[in-house]
């Protein structure tokens, strides 16, 4: 396989890994004001994601870094044309990141409330805008041959874009609720179970509508029609979400969360496969589209980076798995560091 093709899929895989890992902590952050009814529950929710969110967010840094390294032209065009939404995402992630540390530093009610709000806003806004951004990328953005976007934030807030945003928020909330089922007990766990049950039909319906709408709004299906075998990926996504619901019903929360993770990866790949070989398609003229071939780095850089990724990513997965294993227990009161 050509280097550019391998890198296209590594690029997709890193975004999928980011949505799968940071997705549940963004989801918990979005659920935070709704499920965190008292101080104990709030601290349990923070502690459920506390040890892991920071490492999870690095998948975003890596996805961004790898876009920069492997497809510099995409990195340049994507981030400059999506300037405003990206700034909102960054501000969201900044205030969320410090909230966990800052919140516990004072007992003043106003102080706590401020950072509580930041946890919610900093989780909800990135989740929503990542969905909006990716739906718009699936659809193609009005970029010209110079990589300049003809439009603004409101161009992105079209029906399909908003649907993508809502879908991401719902999938992440569901994913986060399942994580809370694993790491909490008693009342909070009951609330998390109910929330996961309640979100499931909503999230799955929006997913179904999104998959159907993609037929009308995007060219994603061209690759699928050319190679029908690929339809297994969206089918797997749906199957995984159904599996998540079955395990949830049986009270087996870890497999349920695993299924939800697989579902998010497969949903991401539904889009990635449809995009191939484009990374950043132009809706003005296909000739302006940035694809794996015309925007890739030199073969030498792609080779060096491939070695880096092949050697280091398994190591990253290994120690992150150890971190997940270390914090597999239910959150206990004595773990209240924050």
């Amino acid at each position: 396989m050509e280097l550019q093709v391998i890198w296209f899929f590594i690029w997709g895989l890193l975004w999928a890994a980011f949505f799968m890992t940071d997705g549940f902590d963004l989801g918990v952050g979005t659920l935070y004001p709704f499920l965190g009814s008292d101080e104990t529950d709030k601290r349990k929710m923070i502690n459920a994601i506390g040890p892991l969110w920071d490492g999870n967010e690095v998948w975003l840094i890596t996805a961004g870094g790898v876009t920069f390294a492997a497809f510099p032209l995409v990195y340049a065009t994507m981030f400059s044309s999506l300037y405003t939404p990206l700034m909102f995402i960054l501000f969201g992630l900044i205030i969320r990141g410090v909230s966990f540390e800052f919140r516990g530093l004072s007992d003043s009610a106003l102080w706590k409330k401020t950072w509580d709000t930041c946890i919610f806003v900093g989780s909800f806004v990135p989740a929503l805008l990542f969905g909006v951004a990716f739906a718009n990328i699936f659809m193609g953005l009005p970029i010209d041959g110079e990589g300049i976007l003809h439009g603004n934030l409101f161009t992105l807030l079209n029906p399909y874009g908003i649907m993508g945003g809502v879908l991401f928020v719902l999938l992440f909330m569901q994913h986060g609720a399942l994580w809370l089922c694993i790491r909490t007990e008693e009342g909070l766990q009951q609330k998390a179970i109910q929330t996961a049950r309640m979100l499931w039909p909503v999230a799955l319906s929006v997913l179904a509508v999104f998959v159907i709408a993609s037929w009308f709004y995007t060219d994603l299906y061209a690759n699928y029609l050319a190679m029908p075998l690929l339809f297994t990926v969206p089918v797997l996504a749906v199957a995984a979400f159904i599996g998540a619901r079955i395990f949830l019903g049986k009270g087996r929360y870890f497999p349920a969360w695993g299924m939800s993770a697989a579902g998010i990866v497969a949903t991401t790949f539904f889009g990635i496969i449809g995009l191939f070989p484009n990374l950043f398609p132009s809706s003005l003229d296909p000739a302006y589209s940035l694809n794996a071939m015309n925007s890739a780095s030199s073969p030498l850089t792609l080779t060096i980076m491939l070695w880096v990724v092949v050697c280091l990513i398994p190591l990253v997965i290994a120690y992150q798995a150890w971190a997940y294993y270390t914090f597999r227990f239910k959150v206990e009161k004595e773990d209240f560091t924050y």
Partner: protein
Amino acid sequence: MDVVLLSRLQFAATTMFHFLFVPLTLGLSILVAWMETRYARTGDEVYLRMTKFWGKLFLINFAVGVVTGITLEFQFGTNWSQYSAYVGDIFGSLLAIEATAAFFLESTFIGIWIFGWKRLSAKAHAGVMWMVAIAGNASAIWILIANAWMQHPVGYTLRESFGGQRAEITDFMAVITQKFAWLTIMHTIAASIVLACFFVMGISAWHLLRKQHEEVFTRSFRMALVPGLIFSLFVAIQGDFHAVDVAHTQPAKMAAMEFHWETQPNAPSYLFAWPDPEAEKNSIEIGKIPGMLSFLIHHDFSTPVTGLKDIPKDERPPIALVGMAFRVMVGLGAYFIIACSIGWFFRKRLQEKTWYLKMMLWSIPLPYIATQAGWLVTEVGRQPWIVYGLMKTSDAVSPISTGQVATSLVAFIVVYGLLGLAGFTMIAKKAMKGPDLPEATETKA
């Protein structure tokens, strides 16, 4: 104001703010890991209290440092897209390697360290802190290699590609082993250790002056004093080698650092000077030492040093800012050596020397000023180039509107201002509160 200036202001503001927190993270992580190692080895509760106290200050600082780092990576794409497309082949890969090789490790292990007190043995927990310290410093190394490539590009060739001409890598080893990078790395990491040592000594001095938690803070002070002295000497000596290299690779920066106009042998150095860029001379020159600049750079008096007049006007950096920042950095560097030497002399009777403790308390901000001045010399001194001699900053900017950058710049100033205020207030509050009482700090043995 235009997009270039606004984007430069935004990048400068976000980088300098980020670098208010990074040096302490680099240096203090090592000190905390060392304290915790001593606890794990001896079981002495005082070391545990020290680890928890300095660890908490480390964590507040780390939180602000880490979240403000994210915006830096993304600003290359949002604000400097022409630059990103031009050098992504090299610069982008260095950032990507930083994330995979170091940042992952640091971020994953910091979570384990914060929440792992009851889940890991004392030795394993100390080991986790070492991983955080090593990964944090490794992360700095990769970022500085990337920065050094902007200062002194090597191992590349220019080729035509879809988006126009761009720099492509030809010799990866040359990029990661180049002298400029390693001189910068040694200077930055050593300066970070000095900063962390002054932070620890200053806060320890505050408590010693109040005669509280004396055991914790005498030990803390002494643990910071030794590396403080060693590394402040190291930074100064190594800084000289670094300056010699700068003179060869970036003559315009060196000329600006020294307010040096005429290319001449026996080039002088001034204790104080003020440049007049219009008249191409200095309006004030005090304390002229003839031949000093030639001697420092070439180790003899007769070799000429390139002056600003031999550099085209549009390729000269802002001279007054670079030169003043250089003097601030060097002057403070000298002060750090003196301050640590005095401490070494009094190390057995610190509590009696209240004037010295007060001096060290008030010295806390000084390494911060020195490291910021260091970055001004490095980054402003590189202007008008974004990649020295290869690409101008004005050609690197994104095709975005002034309004977008102006809005985000204001938002950054507000958000970062509040973060900085909250962060430093919390650090001061926790620092003044002192360590927890012994019974509050038990761990799994």
